[in-house]
């Protein structure tokens, strides 16, 4: 009788030991689980070199609010925002890229400047860290697409069209185009009427070169068939001296000679030139959504209208929109927590943040989920319509930085200051491109291989 008892005891003992072993395993597993969760709670520090305020006043305040909001849902992630200056945006990040050290997230103007750093191996693609379903909502990502990857995030869209002062038009007997766009001849006729009425037809500033660059991107584009058309001249397959590329400077030169611009163009920066329009001192000016919003505030909702840049060119790009994300945000190669950086960029695109962005800046967000009903002004609604319909190309983005600086910005200055003829400027483009090709064989190879 005792044997079965022993057996039972033995079975119980073994079972107890097994249970104990399992319990031990459970105990030892528990800390493992804690261990796997622990990194999530580990403090993460992200440094964000941020630029947007110049494009969208209010962007800095929005970013401050966004960082605070993110801290509430991710208390372990601290985002330090370092505002960047326009003048040193490229050079500061170039220094970081050379040292392979610096911010975790950085800002750079879309396309050309971003690609320059992609080719320097200073970035990781955002599409490696942000799910495709989320990326599908982000607009204009194609501006930074290379090798089938998206390298930077968009935040907002800026379109640049022509704003006009209805009162000054009426005073000069000028009627705005019903189609929303004049032909070049109609535009020149309107400028003549305005000039005859002692009204400055167009306000602009070009001390920083961007006035001329905006004419290039809005008017110079019209004779081109594609961005690849421009690339052909950049890589030397076609000459920049061809009318196709630089013939439009003759029209700009004619405008300067006829006195259609404010006289102090070369004393004013681009934004200072636009101020003349806000003050009612000129009938037309290029304006971003933010600039147009300011004009509506200063001149009155019913006093400002918008139209597309007058059309002359017959290239395939003559009718495309020009909305660009302007600045792009990307994750650096040396970022220790690229996923955390991507999560923060994703948080910036939550509907609540997108709505707040518009409230702060008046600039529409580059996201399909942006609540379009927030835009109430008919003028700004029109802008939004243009910016989100059809293909969009901001041509300046498709220039290497050196050609942009030494030909695009400088060429416009030569015309506005009348220190060079349109032929001189065409020669300048050609020379600047040749110089760039000779001095940057590495970049040239990348541009030659870049399928746009």
């Amino acid at each position, binding site marked *: 009788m005792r044997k079965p008892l022993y057996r039972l005891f033995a079975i119980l003992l073994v079972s107890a030991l097994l249970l104990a072993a399992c319990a031990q395993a459970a105990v030892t597993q528990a800390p493992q689980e804690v261990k796997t969760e622990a990194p999530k709670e580990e403090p993460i520090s992200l440094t964000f070199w941020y630029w947007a305020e110049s494009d969208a006043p209010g962007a800095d305040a929005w970013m401050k609010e966004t960082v605070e909001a993110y801290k509430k849902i991710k208390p372990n992630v601290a985002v330090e925002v370092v505002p960047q200056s326009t003048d040193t945006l490229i*050079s500061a990040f170039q220094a970081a890229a050379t040292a392979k050290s610096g911010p975790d997230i950085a800002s750079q103007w879309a396309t050309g400047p971003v690609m320059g750093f992609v080719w320097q191996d200073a970035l990781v693609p955002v599409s490696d860290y942000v799910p495709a379903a989320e990326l599908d909502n982000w607009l204009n990502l194609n501006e930074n697409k290379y090798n089938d990857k998206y390298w930077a995030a968009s935040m907002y869209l800026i379109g640049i069209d022509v704003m006009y002062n209805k009162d000054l038009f009426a005073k000069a007997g000028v009627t705005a185009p019903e189609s929303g766009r004049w032909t070049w001849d109609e535009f020149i006729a309107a400028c003549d009427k305005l000039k005859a009425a002692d009204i400055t037809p167009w306000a602009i500033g070009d*001390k920083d070169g961007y006035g001329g660059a905006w004419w290039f991107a809005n008017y110079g584009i019209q004779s081109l068939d594609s961005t690849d058309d421009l690339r052909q001249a950049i890589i030397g397959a076609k000459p920049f001296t061809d009318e196709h590329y630089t013939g439009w400077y003759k029209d700009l030169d004619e405008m300067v000679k006829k006195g259609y611009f404010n006289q102090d163009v070369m004393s004013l920066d681009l934004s200072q030139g636009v101020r003349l329009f806000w003050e009612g001192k000129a009938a037309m000016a290029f304006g971003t959504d933010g600039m147009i919003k300011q004009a509506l505030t200063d001149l009155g909702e019913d006093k400002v209208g918008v139209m597309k840049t007058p059309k002359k060119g017959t290239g395939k790009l003559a009718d495309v929109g020009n909305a660009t994300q302007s600045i792009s945000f990307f994750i650096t190669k040396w970022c220790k927590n690229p996923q955390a950086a991507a999560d923060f960029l994703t948080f910036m695109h939550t509907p609540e943040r997108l709505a707040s962005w518009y409230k702060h800046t008046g600039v529409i967000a580059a996201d399909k989920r942006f609540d379009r009903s927030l835009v109430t002004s008919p003028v700004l609604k029109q802008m939004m319509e243009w910016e989100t319909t059809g293909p969009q190309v901001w041509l300046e983005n498709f220039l290497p930085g050196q050609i942009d600086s030494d030909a695009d910005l400088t060429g416009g200055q030569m015309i506005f200051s009348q220190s060079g003829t349109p032929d001189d400027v065409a020669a300048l483009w050609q020379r600047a491109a040749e110089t760039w090709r000779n*001095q940057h064989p590495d970049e040239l190879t990348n541009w030659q291989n870049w399928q746009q």
Partner: protein
Amino acid sequence: MPEKKPPTKNVFRKLEPYLYLAPATILVVLVFIYPVIQIMRTSLLQNTASGIKTIGLTNYRLVSEDPVFWTALKNNGKLLFSVPLMTVLALFIAILLFEHVRGWLVYRGLIFLPYILAIPVVGTTFVYLLGLNGIVNTLLRTVGAGFLAQDWLGSATWVVPSISLVIIYREMGFGVVLFLARLMSLEKEILEAAEIDGANWRQKHFFVTLPQLAGVIEFFVVVELITMLSWVFAYVFTMTGGGPGFASTVMEFYIWKHAFAFRSPGIASALAVVLLATTTFLIILQLRLRRRSLEESI
């Protein structure tokens, strides 16, 4: 027999001066010689698709083929003309102050004030003063001289002379204080003797004062020559950004653009070497001319 010194002591004696010189030498090597060698080395490199390659003097050839380089060099050359003007003005004002004109201490302070202001402050202020609708032109129009009004910084013709004037305005204070300090240390008896001998104001200062200021004038001229070649970046950057076109681009600005905006360290280094060589050449030339004139006067 004289007692022989231990050999270790002799060695130490020989080494002693070098040991004293060592800290300063190491410092100079670290902060000057090493960077110069590095820049020279970088000027022989180029980023290519297959990595960084040594390309000999190609960067120098590319630089010499770039018309902007020649424009920048020419603009630096134009700025050099400010140096004699600035020196003469500073001398004249210093002598006036030395004559103890009424309120000379206040004038001295006022003239020196721009020199202690940061260049970007001076530059930004003059952007507002020299704009087409700036204060200078407004004043000209107010006094009926509107025909003289120009877009001082926006015109390719006027931009370099305008920058020169701003540089003179700021740097002159340094010269005035320098010359005045030297004037104060002159023996008054010599000047009094000249007066007793019947020298007029011009003769007294031209033949007596100026020769005694030669050393300090030379120092000032050399410093300002270097300034005009390699310290004008901040003026150009804040006032014109090198424009309109390339009309006010100077070597430093062009080096900066290549180094940081255009991602071409090789070209930037080649330009820097050329600038260093030009500066060194001019300084040596200036010093030699000075030495020759001293030898001739002896």
